[in-house]
């Protein structure tokens, strides 16, 4: 892959990596008495390893200019593999923390293995490691093809992908050392946040430059969503992470916000991370891979427009529904609740647009597990957005808030929607990227589908039961007006559901492991290669043969 870089790009890579290693050295020295120093050493090792990778092929001959006529897919390929790697890590951590909740004695007596450190490692590894890598990899793939333009350079796609993974590594290593700013889904400290800001702006510039090079007169709907994802996540990330470090030699920082303003900023960020990271980005994925795989036109262009603008406008207001019945002024809660209700309409319009696109292709849904992944994802997207609007209603929230119902809701979205659409898209894109006729094993895709679906259903049902029982137990009164149940009794009542949840998660993890095996077998040449490779090129008009479903 390094040999595909021009000599100038190889030199630039080495210079940037050296600068990064120097930054790591500065962190290691300034923070030698702090976890910041360990992070510095990680940055040095990370950059050094990559410098060796580049230097190993530094003197390879200049690549043929012919390559510029084709799409640039090397970063997408690496991103897909990294995504599956993070999926297995993140889901294994999830099963571990689920098991700890069911059997607390399973813990090993080490600070890094405590629940409070494993839990953000789980959420970050699945959301940012698995989801983020899949989004970057597929966005490169989709925007090149729907714009009929090659990425503008070969350096910046790598900078974004590898820089992003450095952020993920620093984040995860930080959690195990106890480094956190205690903001959910925004736990990494100030230096990791600054680095992610640089990477994310490079991503935005790369995306805009590719769109500017497009040969298609119109911008396809998938790219609207990818662009919304990149732009809004940049805004959310920068505002929510405004903080003042204790010193340049310390990992610890203090947020620019405090009290209820801090809570509101955090949940404005948190809910829009759900909206623009976990929804908009993956809708972009769905809008490309689902119609490609089904071989059907999008049901309605006009519905796409309404849902896109509905989703982007409404979501921005919804964050305060995370703070019902708190110190947050009630008028803010009212706005959060009402906009969450209106939000249901464009959300269901998107899910409906996806499902109606399958009209005329339902026989493929029956036979092709890859397409079925995407269909099931659209169904879970609809279910979860309905549940989300429902839970945003204040009186409903008074029962559900702080219970496992919230966890069930999040996982209906994360497993049922985000992970299923990602696996479906990966199974579609891997044979296209690696020029294979099909995945190594269609039966393993089938196994993965049913493991993932049953795991999700078991997980979500367990948490619905557990959450509603919890909520009811917490609000049951005796005739005398005192609480009937102590908190610990509600914990005892949760135990069977926690076991079921760990089991459901285990099934989901097994599916991801099977999927990773299948992907690795496909790309290492255990499935037949496609002979005609010439069609999937930016300078050619029209459809690409190799991008057709090959099964």
């Amino acid at each position, binding site marked *: 892959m390094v040999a595909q870089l021009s000599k100038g790009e190889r030199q630039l890579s080495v210079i940037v990596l050296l600068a990064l290693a120097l930054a790591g050295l500065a962190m290691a020295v300034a923070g030698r008495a702090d976890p910041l120093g360990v992070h510095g050493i990680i940055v040095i090792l990370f950059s050094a390893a990559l410098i060796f990778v580049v230097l190993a092929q530094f003197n390879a001959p200049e690549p043929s200019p012919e390559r510029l006529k084709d799409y640039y897919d090397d970063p997408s390929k690496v991103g897909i593999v990294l995504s599956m790697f993070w999926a297995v890590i993140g889901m294994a951590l999830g099963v571990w923390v689920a098991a700890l909740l069911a059997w607390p004695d399973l813990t090993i007596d080490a600070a890094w293995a405590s629940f409070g450190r494993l839990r953000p490692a789980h959420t970050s590894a699945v959301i940012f490691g698995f989801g983020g890598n899949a989004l970057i990899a597929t966005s490169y793939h989709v925007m090149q093809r*729907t714009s009929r333009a090659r990425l503008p350079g070969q350096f910046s796609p790598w900078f974004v992908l590898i820089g992003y993974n450095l952020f993920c590594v620093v984040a995860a290593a930080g959690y195990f050392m106890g480094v956190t700013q205690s903001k959910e889904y925004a736990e990494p400290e100030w230096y990791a946040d600054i680095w992610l800001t640089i990477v994310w702006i490079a991503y935005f510039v790369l995306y805009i430059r590719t769109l500017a090079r497009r040969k298609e007169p119109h911008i396809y709907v998938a790219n609207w969503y990818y662009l919304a994802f990149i732009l809004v996540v940049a805004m959310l990330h920068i505002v929510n992470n405004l903080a003042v470090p204790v010193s340049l030699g310390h990992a610890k920082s203090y947020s620019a916000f405090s009290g209820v303003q801090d809570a509101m900023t955090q949940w404005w960020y948190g809910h829009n991370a759900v909206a623009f990271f976990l929804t908009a980005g993956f809708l972009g994925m769905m809008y490309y891979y689902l119609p490609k795989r089904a071989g059907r036109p999008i049901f309605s*262009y*006009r*519905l796409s427009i309404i849902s896109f603008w509905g989703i982007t406008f409404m979501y921005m207001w919804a964050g305060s529904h995370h703070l019902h019945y708190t110190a947050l002024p009630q008028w803010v809660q009212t706005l959060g609740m*009402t906009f969450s209700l209106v939000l249901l309409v464009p959300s269901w319009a998107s899910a409906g647009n996806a499902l109606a696109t399958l009209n005329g292709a339902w026989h493929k849904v029956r036979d092709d597990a890859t397409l079925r992944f995407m269909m099931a994802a659209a169904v879970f997207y609809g279910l979860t957005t309905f549940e989300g609007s429902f839970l945003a209603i204040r009186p409903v929230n008074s029962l559900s808030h702080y219970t496992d119902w919230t966890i069930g809701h999040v996982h209906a979205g994360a497993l049922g929607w985000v992970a299923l659409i990602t696996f479906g898209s990966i199974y579609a894109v891997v044979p296209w990227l690696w020029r294979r006729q099909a995945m190594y094993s269609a039966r393993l895709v089938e196994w993965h589908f049913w493991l993932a679906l049953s795991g999700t259903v078991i997980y979500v049902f367990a948490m619905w039961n557990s959450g509603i029982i919890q909520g009811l137990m917490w609000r049951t009164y*005796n005739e005398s007006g005192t609480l009937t149940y102590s908190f610990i009794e509600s914990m005892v009542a949760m135990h069977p559901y926690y076991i079921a949840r760990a089991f459901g998660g285990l099934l989901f993890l097994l599916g991801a492991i099977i999927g990773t095996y299948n992907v690795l077998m496909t790309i290492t040449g255990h499935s037949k290669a496609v002979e005609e490779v010439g069609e999937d090129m930016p300078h050619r008009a029209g459809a690409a043969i190799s991008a057709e479903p090959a099964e």
Partner: protein
Amino acid sequence: MDVGDRDPVTGQLTTGHEWNGITELYTPVPRIVFFFLFVTILFSIVYWVLMPAWPLGWTYTKGILGFDQKAVVQSQLAEAGAEQSAWTSRIDGMDYAAIQADPELMKIVHEAGATLFGDNCAVCHGTGGTGGKGFPDLTAGAWLWGGEPEAIAETLRVGINAPHEETRVSQMLSFGRDGILVRDQIDDVVGYVQSLGPSAAAAHDEEALARGAEVFAGNCAACHGEDAKGNRDLGAPNLTDASWIYGGDRQSITSTVYSGHQGLMPSWEQRLTPTQRKILTLYVLGLSGETQ
């Protein structure tokens, strides 16, 4: 917008654009989408009129229902307090024996006490009050500071070795670690202590037992008493009953004599109201079967 081909499945026209093989139909937005947009927006507008909703610089629209979550929670708390005062005032004004004689009040004590115990005491003493290693069994009737209601209430109020000004203070010295007793003496006194319990096996070594009794008289009797039945003024446990806080096997007793103990019970004066502590006192008495 240009219009392209007709889709054979749905009969709809395409928009005339194509991206990498993907086309889009020009299907009109289903009416139901507009209907539900209308319904949800209408609901929102009505809700905004009724409830606090929109910011206006220094203030906000209050809503014509005059609903305010702070006022609501305050009135609900006041209402609940008024409802409970029917029986809380009786509990406050009556002495323990009188409450114990009143089955109606004791029913409330059991209900409310179980939840208070679960939320505050169970984390150490266990949900059933049976304790565990280091945490006394409250069902055994083996009271360290006295089993009268007043004594239990006082323990709840000030705690044991707690950061309360009037806390009860109790310490078992580290006889081994601090060099007060040597290894042989500890062995002997542990054997002697084991021989005191109701289930003690017949001693094998009368001589060791005699030596142990001597060590006991010189070192332990000051707190635990000549007869080893403990001293409730000092929180010193009775060593002749079947109840052990840190374990009654040879190894546990040896470790206790060697390292000592200074168990801690928090003071609940800041955290629980006098009524709640009174309910807990009666509930804890009930656990040990000393209710009536």
